[in-house]
C-alpha cells in the first residue's frame, strides 16, 4: 500500500482546486472520523484509564494504580482458570479449523460439475448468527433429546452429557466454534488457492508429482500468507469468544467453570460484579497477550516464507 499518492489534478498546493479538494476531503472524512474517534479511540484510551481505577458505576472512581493488574495476575484463581480454558478453546478451535479448512478448500478448488452448489452449501454457516447456531447446537447436544445422543443410543453407547458434564462441556463448545470458523477459513484459503496459476500444477504433473505431492509442494507453500492470516484471525476470535459460550453453557462459564473463558469473565466482572476497573484491566491483559501472539506469529511466518 503506497502511503503517498499524486492528486488527480496538477497545480501547486495554493491553487483553488487543491484548496477546494482539501476542504472537501476534510469535510468528507469528518463524520466518519468522528465516529471512529468517539467509538474506537476514546474507548481505547478510556479503558486503559479505567484499568487503573476502582469503579462500580455509581460511586465515584478511585485511583488504585496497579492494584487491579496485581490482583488479576497473582490473587485471582479465576484468572488462571479463564486463561487455561481460553487457551484450550483457542488451540482446540484453531488447529482443527486450519486442518479441516485446508482439506475442504483443496476439495472445493476443482472444476467439478456442480461444485458451485457445494460451495454455496459449505459457506452457508457464515450467514448464521452465533446465537442461532448455538441454540441449534444446544438442541443437538441435549442430553435427553439431542441428535448425538440418539445416534449414540443406536450403537449402544449411553447418553453423553455434552453440555452438562465439566469434562465434555469445553469439547462441545470447541466443536461448535470449529463448525462456525471452518467456512470462513475455507473461503479465505479457497480464494488464495484460486490465485495459483494452473500451469504451475501442469509443470508439477510433468515433473512427476502426484496429487498429494502437488498439494504439499505447491499449494500449501503458495498460500502461506492466507494460512497465517487464518491462524491469526482464528486465534483472535477464539480468545474473545462469548456469544456461543453464553448460549451453550450460560453466563457463568458452564458446568463448574469448565467453560469459563476470558470473554465470560470480562462480562461477568463488568456487569454482574460491576467492577469496571478490574474488567478493564482484564481487557488490557487480553489485548497484550493477543498482541504478543500476533507478533510472534508474524515473525515466525516471515522467517519461514521468504518468497510469496
Amino acid at each position, binding site marked *: 500500500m503506497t502511503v503517498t499518492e499524486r492528486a488527480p489534478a496538477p497545480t501547486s498546493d495554493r491553487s483553488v482546486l487543491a484548496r477546494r479538494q482539501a476542504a472537501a476531503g476534510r469535510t468528507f472524512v469528518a463524520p466518519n472520523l468522528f465516529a471512529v474517534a468517539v467509538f474506537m479511540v476514546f474507548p481505547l484510551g478510556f479503558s486503559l484509564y479505567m484499568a487503573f481505577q476502582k469503579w462500580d458505576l455509581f460511586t465515584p472512581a478511585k485511583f488504585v494504580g496497579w492494584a487491579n493488574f496485581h490482583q488479576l495476575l497473582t490473587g485471582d484463581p479465576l484468572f488462571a482458570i479463564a486463561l487455561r480454558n481460553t487457551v484450550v478453546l483457542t488451540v482446540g478451535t484453531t488447529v482443527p479449523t486450519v486442518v479441516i479448512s485446508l482439506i475442504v478448500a483443496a476439495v472445493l478448488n476443482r472444476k467439478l460439475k456442480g461444485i458451485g452448489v457445494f460451495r454455496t452449501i459449505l459457506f452457508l454457516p457464515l450467514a448464521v*448468527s452465533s446465537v442461532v447456531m448455538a441454540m441449534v447446537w444446544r438442541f443437538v447436544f441435549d442430553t435427553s433429546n439431542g441428535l448425538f445422543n440418539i445416534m449414540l443410543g443406536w450403537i449402544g453407547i449411553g447418553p453423553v452429557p455434552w453440555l452438562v458434564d465439566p469434562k465434555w462441556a469445553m469439547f462441545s463448545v470447541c466443536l461448535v466454534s470449529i463448525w462456525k470458523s471452518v467456512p470462513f477459513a475455507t*473461503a479465505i484459503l479457497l480464494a488464495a488457492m484460486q490465485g495459483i496459476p494452473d500451469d504451475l500444477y501442469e509443470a508439477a504433473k510433468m515433473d512427476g508429482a502426484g496429487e498429494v505431492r502437488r498439494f504439499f509442494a505447491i499449494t500449501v507453500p503458495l498460500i502461506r500468507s492466507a494460512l497465517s492470516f487464518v491462524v491469526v484471525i482464528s486465534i483472535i476470535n477464539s480468545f474473545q469468544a462469548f456469544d456461543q459460550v453464553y448460549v451453550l453453557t450460560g453466563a457463568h462459564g458452564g458446568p463448574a467453570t469448565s467453560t469459563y473463558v476470558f470473554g465470560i469473565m470480562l462480562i461477568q466482572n463488568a456487569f454482574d460484579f460491576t467492577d469496571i476497573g478490574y474488567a478493564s484491566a482484564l481487557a488490557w491483559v487480553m489485548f497484550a497477550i493477543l498482541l504478543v501472539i500476533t507478533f510472534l506469529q508474524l515473525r515466525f511466518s516471515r522467517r519461514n516464507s521468504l518468497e510469496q
Partner: protein
Amino acid sequence: MSSLTARVIKLSVLRALALYTALIAMAWCALFPILWALSGSLKNQAEITEPVLIPPHPQWANYAEVFQLMPFWRMFLNTVLYAGCVTAGQVFFCSLAGYAFARLRFRGRDVLFLAYLATLMVPLTVTVIPQFILMRTFGWTDTPWSMIVPGLFGSAFGTYLMRQFFRTLPKELEEAAILDGCSPWQVYWRVLLPHTRPAVMVLAVLTWMTVWNDFLWPLLMIQRNSISPLTLGLVHLQGQYASKWPVLMAASMLILLPLVIIYAVAQRAFIRGIALSGFGGR
C-alpha cells in the same frame, strides 16, 4: 481404444466418485445442525427424540406458537430498523470517507489513515466496556439510539474497504468530471458512486449480517422486549421456555430465514467480502 485408456478412464471415474463422496460428507456436516433444527421445529414435543429427519405430521403450529410466546414481529422490525439504519449510514459515510482518503489530498491524510488501520487491530473486548459507559452517559441505555448511533457514521473497516476500492477506479473518470466543472461532492455523487456498486454491495451485505447477528451489544444495552432485536429475543425465549425445543427451533429458523435469503441472493458479494475482510461472523 487400448486397455490402458480404459483403465485410465475407470480410475478417473473412481476419483470423481471419491471427490463427490467427500463433498457430500462435508455438505452434510455443514448442513445437518440446521436441517435437524428444521425438522425439530416441525415435530411435537413427544416426537423430538425420534431420529426421523422428516416428521410424519409437520407441526406448523410450532411456528404460530413462536408469535404467541414472543413479540416476534416487533423484534423483527426492530432488527430491520437497526440493521437498515446502520447499513445505510455505513455505506454512505464510509464511501464518502473512503473517497476522500483515496483521492482528495489534505494535510495529515496518510497519517490519519494509518491510525485508522491501527484501530482495526483493537479487539472488541477492550472497547465494549467504555462504549457501554458512553451510552450510559448519553442516557441511551435501553433505547434504540444505542443500537443505531455507534455504527451510523461508519467504521474504520468500512472506510478501509471503500478506500481500497476507490483506488482501483481510473483517475480519468474524475479528471474528466473536474474539467467539466464538478465540485468534489458532485464528482463523488454523480460520477464515482455509480461505479462502486460491487464494493458497496459487499459492505452492505457484511454490515447487515453483522448487525442482524449481533448479540453481545444488545445484551448489554437493551432490557425492554419492545426494542429488542431478534437475537436477544431468542435467548430470552430460551430462558423462559427452555424445554420447548420445537418452538425454540422454529424461532431459530425464522430468524435464520431472512439471512439465508440474502445469502442466496448476494452470495458472491458476501464471499468476496469475507475474502477481503478478516471480519466475517465470529
